[in-house]
């Protein structure tokens, strides 16, 4: 079967918004060239923001402060609950407060390299530049970052970087940053500058005269469908890790807002770039509904091992002699040992489990052992460092990690792919902007630790508010009404779909389909992908899609709080996305970052990139549920950080 049975090639796509010239001044020059909106005119302009996480919350607050009228939407019962809240580790910023040689350029360099040379240099440089403003902003809001005895901010080193540039608030950095943005947003709601719509879900994008002009939303309490209009629409709807069913995402995280925009013409870039985090608590059985991340910091003192002999896997860990243990990361990667990057640690765990040497239920786990650390440092010291994590582990598993080694296994954590945007964060649909995890722009094929929070807040506080004015300067745009044909059509799409879900009345639950999709994705589009596996997965997903639309059972009515109806819409979109992810993974016949292709590895099993063929972002155009997606390539040029091979041996 040739690849062209699955996709078609299209014209290249270009980022026309990015200035060229010296990378250091590109952002300054873009801001200067961007058109402004007179403060008196801003109140005549309305912006819809979908999502209230770090990106959406900070954008909505900042746009309202600037004087625009903002309508904000989230599916949770309060904007404070967006999943950014669960981020543990920290946020990077090139403050160089440690005087350890950090700089904007170094953060830029680390991020481009960490992304395995699949991100745009202009964007990453700007991200590093505004990182310093983020910390100032958050401190001014009262975010209680960790401090030293002198009262200054503390930093730590994170994710294998050689400088200490990560700011943190114990293990709850995401929570504290989100509450800062949430409070700024609530202030604007209280002032009447933001109309907040919690428990509302965007189900369709409205495009009028080629411009994004609104959305169709469902009130999740009453089931009422309404159409909402604006001069521009901003999607800050997060990532799509839940396509795998089991992930570290919140249960409600979904791709629907982004996918509906994709169906209406927005290109979707690099969907196969998924980050799989090595230190999560393994599945305990078929009831499992989500996976919980354990901070990566545990690998600083824990030693990862499995039994040398598969026959020992059923024995309690304590009965396996030292000589019969395989500390495989220390063995394969002697210089980095247990601290190899996320993708490498994850794949190594999969490999030993595939060999039948995994531990715990289903053989899907490896040990993370603190016995040596406890012997060396004493139990008290280990408790002081990791006490809260050990407690969390015990609460979930019922096992005491001071007495028996923890069991960990990789889990889907973050998605680097997303809607394609230019330097202004505008998608291929004019007036549709995409920020935070929902876009594809800054992390390339792999995201470094403590960079997600940085990007979300950079986009929301500092980038979008400066670039959206260039678009809005041409507004206010002609009034849109309920009676306009594209509005009627978008609304009808939503209503018909809901009616269809409710009318099938089959014999399988929505969750059963979601679980099955997740298993296909994890097996064939997870830590290692092959041509054979991906081709098989595409067939399985197509069959699943067919079955979903004939056998799904959605109870209840549309005009009420109906959580299964909400899920049905999301799972239907995940099924379509899953197919595109497999096609993207299939077309990329190289290993890079979070995408490891079995056919593209070095003789000793390491990832092999093909810069000659694949140094581009793959932006996909939608061509109908049963049509072939069209591939548009955006070539990546590296003027400053020249592609090299990552080595951790």
């Amino acid at each position, binding site marked *: 079967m040739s690849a062209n049975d699955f996709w078609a090639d299209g014209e290249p796509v270009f980022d026309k918004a990015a200035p060229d010239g010296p990378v250091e001044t590109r952002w300054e020059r873009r801001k200067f060239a961007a058109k402004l909106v007179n403060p008196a005119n801003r109140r005549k302009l309305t912006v819809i923001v979908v999502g209230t996480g770090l990106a959406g919350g900070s954008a909505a*607050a*900042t746009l309202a*402060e600037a004087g625009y009228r903002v309508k904000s939407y989230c599916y*949770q*019962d*309060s904007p*404070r*609950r967006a*999943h950014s*809240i669960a981020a543990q580790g920290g946020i990077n910023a090139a403050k160089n407060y440690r005087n350890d040689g950090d700089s904007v350029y170094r953060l830029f360099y680390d991020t481009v390299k960490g992304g395995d040379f699949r991100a745009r240099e202009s964007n990453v440089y700007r991200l590093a530049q505004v990182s310093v*403003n983020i910390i*100032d*902003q*958050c*401190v*001014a*809001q*009262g975010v*209680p970052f*960790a*401090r*030293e005895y*002198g*009262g200054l*901010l503390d930093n730590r080193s994170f994710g294998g970087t050689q400088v200490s540039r990560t700011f943190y608030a114990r293990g*709850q950095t995401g*929570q*504290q940053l989100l*509450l800062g943005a949430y*409070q*700024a947003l*609530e*202030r604007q*709601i*209280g002032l009447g500058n933001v109309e*907040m719509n*919690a428990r509302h879900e965007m189900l369709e994008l409205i495009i009028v005269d080629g411009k994004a002009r609104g959305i169709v939303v469902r009130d999740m*309490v009453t089931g009422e469908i309404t159409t909402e209009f604006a001069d521009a629409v901003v999607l800050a709807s997060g990532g799509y890790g839940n396509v795998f069913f089991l992930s*570290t995402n*919140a*249960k409600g995280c979904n791709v629907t807002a982004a996918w509906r925009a994709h169906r209406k013409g927005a290109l979707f870039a690099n969907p196969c770039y998924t980050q799989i985090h090595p230190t999560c608590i393994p599945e*305990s*059985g078929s*009831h*499992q*509904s*989500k996976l*919980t991340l354990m901070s990566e910091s545990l690998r600083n003192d824990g030693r990862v091992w499995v039994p040398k002999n598969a026959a020992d896997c059923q024995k309690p860990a304590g009965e396996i002699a030292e000589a019969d243990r395989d500390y495989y990361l220390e063995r394969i990667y002697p210089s980095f040992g247990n601290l190899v990057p996320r993708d490498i640690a994850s794949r190594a765990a999969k490999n030993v489990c595939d060999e039948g040497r995994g531990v715990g239920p289903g053989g899907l786990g490896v040990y993370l052992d603190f016995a040596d650390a406890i012997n060396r440092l004493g139990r008290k010291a280990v408790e002081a460092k990791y006490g809260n994590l050990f407690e*969390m582990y015990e*609460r979930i598993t*019922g096992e005491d990690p001071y007495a028996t080694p923890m069991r960990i296994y990789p889990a889907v954590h973050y998605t680097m792919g997303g809607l394609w945007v230019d330097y202004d964060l505008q998608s291929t649909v004019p007036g549709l902007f995409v920020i935070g995890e929902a876009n594809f722009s800054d992390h390339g094929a792999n995201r470094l630790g403590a960079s997600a929070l940085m990007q979300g807040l950079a986009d929301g*506080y500092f980038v979008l508010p400066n670039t959206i004015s260039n678009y809005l300067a041409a507004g206010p745009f002609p009034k849109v009404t309920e009676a306009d044909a594209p509005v009627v059509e978008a609304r009808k799409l939503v209503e018909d779909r809901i009616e269809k879900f409710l009318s099938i009345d089959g*014999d399988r639950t929505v969750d059963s389909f979601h679980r099955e999709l997740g298993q296909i994705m994890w097996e064939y589009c997870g830590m290692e992908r092959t041509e054979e596996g991906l081709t098989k997965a595409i067939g399985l997903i197509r069959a699943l899609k067919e079955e979903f639309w004939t056998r799904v*059972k959605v*109870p*209840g009515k549309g005009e*009420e*709080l109906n*959580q*299964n109806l909400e899920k049905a819409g999301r799972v239907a979109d995940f099924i379509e996305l899953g197919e595109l992810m497999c096609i993207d993974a299939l077309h990329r016949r190289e290993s890079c970052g979070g995408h490891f292709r079995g056919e593209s590895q070095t003789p000793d099993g390491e990832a092999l990139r093909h810069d000659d063929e694949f140094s581009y972002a793959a932006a996909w155009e939608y061509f109908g549920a049963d049509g072939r997606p069209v591939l548009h390539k955006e070539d990546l040029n590296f003027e400053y950080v020249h592609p090299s091979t990552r080595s951790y041996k």
Partner: protein
Amino acid sequence: MDIKVRVWRQPGPSAAGKMVTYDVKGISPDASFLEMIDVLNETLILDGDDPIAFDHDCREGICGMCSMVVNGVAHGPEKATTVCQLHMRKFSDGDVIDVEPWRAAAFPVIKDLVVDRSAFDQIIQAGGYITAPTGTAPDAHATPVPKKDADAAFEAATCIGCGACVAACPNGSSMLFTAAKIAHLGLMPQGQPERDSRVIDMLQAQDDAGFGGCTNAGECTTVCPKGIPLSLIGRLNSDYRKAISKN
């Protein structure tokens, strides 16, 4: 494990509710409490019944969305644990477990176990912030904050806004929630300019939203999944006295 759950079923905000008993068979002790409800819901759907509506999202104890009173205790029997982090191994085979929504005048029931907590957002709107529009901030190191103040502010700021404190309070009071925010912002030098107006406005907002008064019953801190201490309410009262004496 085989258990029975008695669950509050209420079809809508103005409908009458009642406790309904369900058998849940063969549930793993490693399942979380919410996963047990998931399993039950799968059965209900296939049997043509209406599944139980409940709020949840992150399922790792940080978003504050889950909200169930289990056997009469907000978030259930395990200390400092949200109900999403409660596991079935804490129960025994054959147990009969009562599951109810948060019950408070300011948190009306929407459906089954789902309640409306938007009143918490109204309290924050009234003053639960520091006014710092984007772009106006000085360098982060311009004002050092003593470590003990920063640490104490952080402890108060760990509140997840779940509302268990309100559900547990015999008066349906939101004092612990409000006190946590007052302490977080009031302990930071950045929070001083608005310290007086904040406490006055937030207390007014909680009264307006229909929360009850505080009588120091202390039930709030007992059920708080983040261990926010009762002493913060004393701090709030002290801030309030100072603020009104000046205004």
